């Protein structure tokens, strides 16, 4: 029961605290333009004080900070781990693992061996010159090719997931070989 209330409180706290951290920028666009910014802010603050004492406000801010910092820490850890993984690149309309990609995937395999608490999601991507649907299939084959390589390098298959995004999530949009090459990739995302 205590936990239940705690959850309710957190939900309440997060829900209510939002305006204090970042007030809604333009509640009434037309009115806000006419009124001076200072006046708008004062009205907002006055409106909120009716329901909360300053002590409560303080409590909310602390709670929100705690929630945020925990999430931020987790995200930062994932980003740090992921930054150690480079994308494995592919040739046009190909899902063969290139020589330069082997070293990259070997590195992923050895990091996964050391850090048993994380799993990996391999995203297969393509450049935008092919057709969308075929590229989804091509991205799938690229992700699977990398997965097979990882398994052969000793990574248990239950620690690897794959997804294809085809050409739908490009890292760049220029129409030149440099950008196309950067998009023809298997990207590694760390999962828990």
């Amino acid at each position: 029961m205590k936990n239940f209330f705690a959850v309710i409180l957190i939900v309440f706290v997060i829900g209510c605290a939002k305006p204090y951290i970042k007030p809604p920028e333009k509640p009434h666009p037309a009115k806000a333009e006419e009124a001076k910014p200072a006046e708008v802010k004062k009205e907002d603050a006055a409106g909120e004080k009716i329901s909360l004492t300053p002590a409560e406000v303080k409590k909310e801010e602390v709670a929100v900070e705690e929630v945020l910092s925990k999430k931020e820490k987790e995200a930062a850890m994932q980003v740090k781990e992921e930054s150690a993984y480079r994308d494995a690149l592919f040739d046009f309309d190909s899902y063969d693992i290139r020589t330069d990609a082997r070293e990259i995937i070997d590195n992923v395999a050895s990091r996964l061996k050391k850090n048993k608490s994380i799993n990996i999601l391999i995203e297969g991507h393509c450049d935008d010159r092919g057709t969308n649907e075929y590229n989804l299939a091509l991205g799938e084959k690229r992700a699977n090719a990398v997965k097979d390589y990882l398994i052969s390098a000793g990574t248990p298959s239950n620690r690897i997931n794959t997804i294809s995004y085809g050409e739908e999530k490009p890292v760049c949009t220029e129409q030149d070989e440099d950008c196309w090459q950067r998009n023809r990739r298997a990207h590694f995302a760390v999962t828990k």
Partner: protein
Amino acid sequence: MTKKFTVHSSQFTVFVFIFSLFTVHCSLSTVSHAKVYIDITSPAMRKLPVSFSFTGETEAAEITEIAKNDLDSTGIFHPLESNIPGAEITVSINVNVSGEAVTAEVSVFDLIENNEVHRKKYEAAKNILRILAHSISNDIFKAITGQEGIFRTKLTYIVDVSGKKELHLMDWDGYNSHKIVAKGLTFSHSWSRDGVYIIYSSERDKEWSIYLMNLKNYRETMLFSSNGLNLAGNSSPDGDIAFSSSKDGSPEIYVMNADGTGSKKLTKSIGIDVSPVFSPDGSQIAFVSDRGGSPQIYIMHADGTGIRRLTFEGNYNTSPAWAPDGKQIAYVGRKNSNNQIFVVKLDTSEIRQLTDKGNNESPAFSPDGMFIAFDSDREKPKGIYVMRVNGEGLKKISPKGVKAISPKWSPFLR
């Protein structure tokens, strides 16, 4: 000359769509006719001069304009103002408005034989004036050509919203466009043969699953989900659904029942098998495979036997779409580093290239086989275009400034 009308809000359009299924009442019978004025299958066809006149309320001008645009886009009529001589057929539209109800009386008259070939009274609510007008176009078209018109058909298409892919629906002329699926990355959509359901694939929480949407109530049902990539193809006349799945490792072609049960694997290759489409009669399936070293169009019997390669020119041919008569397939072929729309005849393997400007992808035939819709980047952003099957009469139909791709044409709708 296209008039601008108010674009309805999404919810309102949904209402209008459902409402429209029931509210265009037609009364009085069509005058019987046997004569076909234009043989639209004849290659040496000349344009038939038709004059349009209207009387009555302001809505009469709107209705006439819509009907005129519909008929003009077919390329088989030469629309004339009523005061210009030379017409062989006259279309007269008289409109009365009472409150929210619009009544239109339409007469089609053959000046050469001095004979009324069509007369009909239409009633509809004011807010579905365009549907009323398209119904009139269909009847005029039928009276003159003997063929069913596509003027009340719709297209689904994909809108690219900053990396998200939404499924939208619009009238064949691009009006009444609205969103129908906003969740996830949505792709590989197709219409059921009765025009009531849309089958599509969507990526949500890092899983590609196949879904079904009922357009009558906009309710979504998940049909098929598994590990890997699941991309919907289209459905057969019996309701079976073809799809591509990599659940066993590599993308292969499968069929399943209309409710998503009883999936059966049809192909087995180490490479990619994707984009399966049932032929109009359901006896064959066209698909894309790289089993020969590059993506090419293949055809097989609906049970997976008798696989044969259909395209040999070029090293990148994808996105097959059957013509409604089942005699040719439109597809995307890569030529001089650009993607273009081609059509291949099944009996002779003869190829025709239909586009040559920019990149052109995702061909889809209109249900009468007269038009092909596709997406093109000839102008930025990418948009949906419609042309006649000979490549003429090109026009952009998707909303301005919207990145729109992958059109799929509905069957005939009433």
